[in-house]
């Protein structure tokens, strides 16, 4: 998943017909893959099955732990009330907006800091402090400034993900070989061309990495934001469920959240593969 460098990809692979040994080897790795997937599924299934059984046998108290059958029931109830997809939609929309804004603003900010050495040196201590500050502490400030609503939630998300994106992309820029930059300059390339011909394509792995980290952080930002202000969304359901002691609602929301986050992360992984393919093997 983290491999960007298909070095020597086909240099060493002769184009001969597949030998029986190679066939056996391929079969072996395919079998290993299947076994790993199966084991993963079994663990998931067992966990839910044990949860259900323990709850039914009252080994644990389902009022506190909830249980899978009740979660499914709760989902059904929410669906019938017509609010299930509304809550999911609100949270996902906020996350996607926060994620996209964080990425775009972060990359632009990184470019600006690279462009102006003066600016980046001036900003350095501020970035360090902002990076180490627990951004959640700013939540109440945003609410007072912006008002309790989706905008405050998105700003919360940005606060959490932006600095990390800037630092990751900037470090990508700074680790590009100076000689590659020199090469572009020798051809008479402008600073802008250095950016587009070398820095951005060379930092592609860093940018993708920032995206992956960002997906996770955006969820954190949105849920924290919803805890603080919202009247809808999965974060709201969790807080509300906790306050009225409806653990079924809390657990249901957490399960849905887990699935949504996994799907979005997978989306970024697919995006990465797509871009890599568009760039051919790249790097």
């Amino acid at each position, binding site marked *: 998943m983290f491999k960007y*460098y*298909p*070095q*020597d*990809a*086909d*240099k060493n692979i002769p184009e001969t017909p597949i030998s029986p040994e190679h066939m056996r080897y391929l079969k072996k790795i395919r079998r290993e893959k299947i076994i790993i997937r199966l084991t993963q599924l079994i663990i998931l299934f067992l966990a839910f099955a044990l949860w259900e059984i323990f709850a039914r046998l009252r080994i644990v108290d389902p009022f506190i732990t909830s249980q899978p059958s009740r979660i499914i029931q709760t989902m059904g109830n929410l669906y019938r009330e017509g609010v299930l997809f509304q809550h999911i939609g609100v949270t996902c929309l906020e996350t996607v907006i926060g994620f996209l804004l964080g990425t775009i603003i972060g990359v632009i900010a990184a470019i600006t800091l690279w462009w102006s050495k003066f600016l980046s040196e001036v900003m350095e201590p501020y970035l360090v402090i902002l990076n180490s500050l627990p951004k959640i502490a700013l939540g109440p400030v945003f609410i007072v400034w912006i008002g309790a609503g989706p905008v405050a939630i998105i700003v919360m998300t940005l606060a959490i993900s932006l600095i990390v994106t800037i630092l990751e992309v900037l470090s990508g820029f700074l680790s590009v*070989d100076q*000689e*590659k930059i*020199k*090469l*572009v*300059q*020798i*051809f*008479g*390339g402008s600073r802008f*061309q250095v950016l587009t*011909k*070398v820095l951005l*394509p*060379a930092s*592609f792995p860093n940018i993708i990495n920032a995206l992956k980290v960002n997906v996770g952080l955006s969820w954190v930002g949105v849920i924290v934001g919803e805890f603080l202000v919202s009247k809808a969304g999965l974060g709201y359901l969790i807080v509300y469920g906790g306050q009225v002691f409806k653990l079924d609602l809390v657990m249901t929301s957490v399960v849905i959240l887990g699935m949504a986050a996994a799907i979005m992360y997978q989306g970024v992984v697919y995006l990465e593969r797509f871009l890599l393919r568009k*760039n*051919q*093997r*790249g*790097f």
Partner: protein
Amino acid sequence: MKAKVELHNIGMKYQSPNGEINALENINLTVYDREFVCIVGPSGCGKSTLLSIMSGLLPPTSGYLLLNGEKITGTSKKIGYMLQKDHLFGWRTILENVLLGLEIQKAITPETKARAAELLKTYGLYEFRNKYPNQLSGGMRQRAALIRTLMTDPEILLLDEAFSALDYQTRLAVTEDIYGIIKQENKTAILVTHDIAEAISMANRVICLSKRPGTIKNIYEINLTCTKRTPLSSREAPEFRHYFQSIWKELDIHV
């Protein structure tokens, strides 16, 4: 002979918070049209600095230099530069890499594209034009880097230890190869190297630089008796080892 590049009293002092580094001092040199000049010297004596100055990328702190009689004040299309590593971009195909200079200079036209294809064909890389650099051998990559430099049609090639990243066998072959290409394309070449044998095998003149601050210690005219001069045949010439010994003594390398 027509003077191509003239260096007049070139000096270079690098400034850093820890002090001043006097890299080059009082360099006077004229390189003639179609000449192949090699610059040798101990490491850290300012060879790369000298090439950077000649490329127009680094303004010298004293002196001035002329190209075809005109002052060099910045990078020029007439000057091509080859670095130690090929620096082919991994995210571009060989063809796209070769076209990099033209792309930057916004000079991609059907004619220049055809010329790229022609050069790739002449130098045996045409079949690999759609491959990525990591699919090519070191020698082929270096050749692609040379074609990339040739594409903008420079009059002078600056080569900074262009072969030293290669292993010995490949290096001899690539040297032969690139020398042939440079001669065939009628270019003036200035090669920096720390390999004395490599310098003698290719050069019309070998310039010996002193330890830092680099100054010109001596210039050797290389005249070898061989039928057709190539880097490999030069190494067979009877005078080769005399030059080698003199330059070796000149550089006075202690370990």
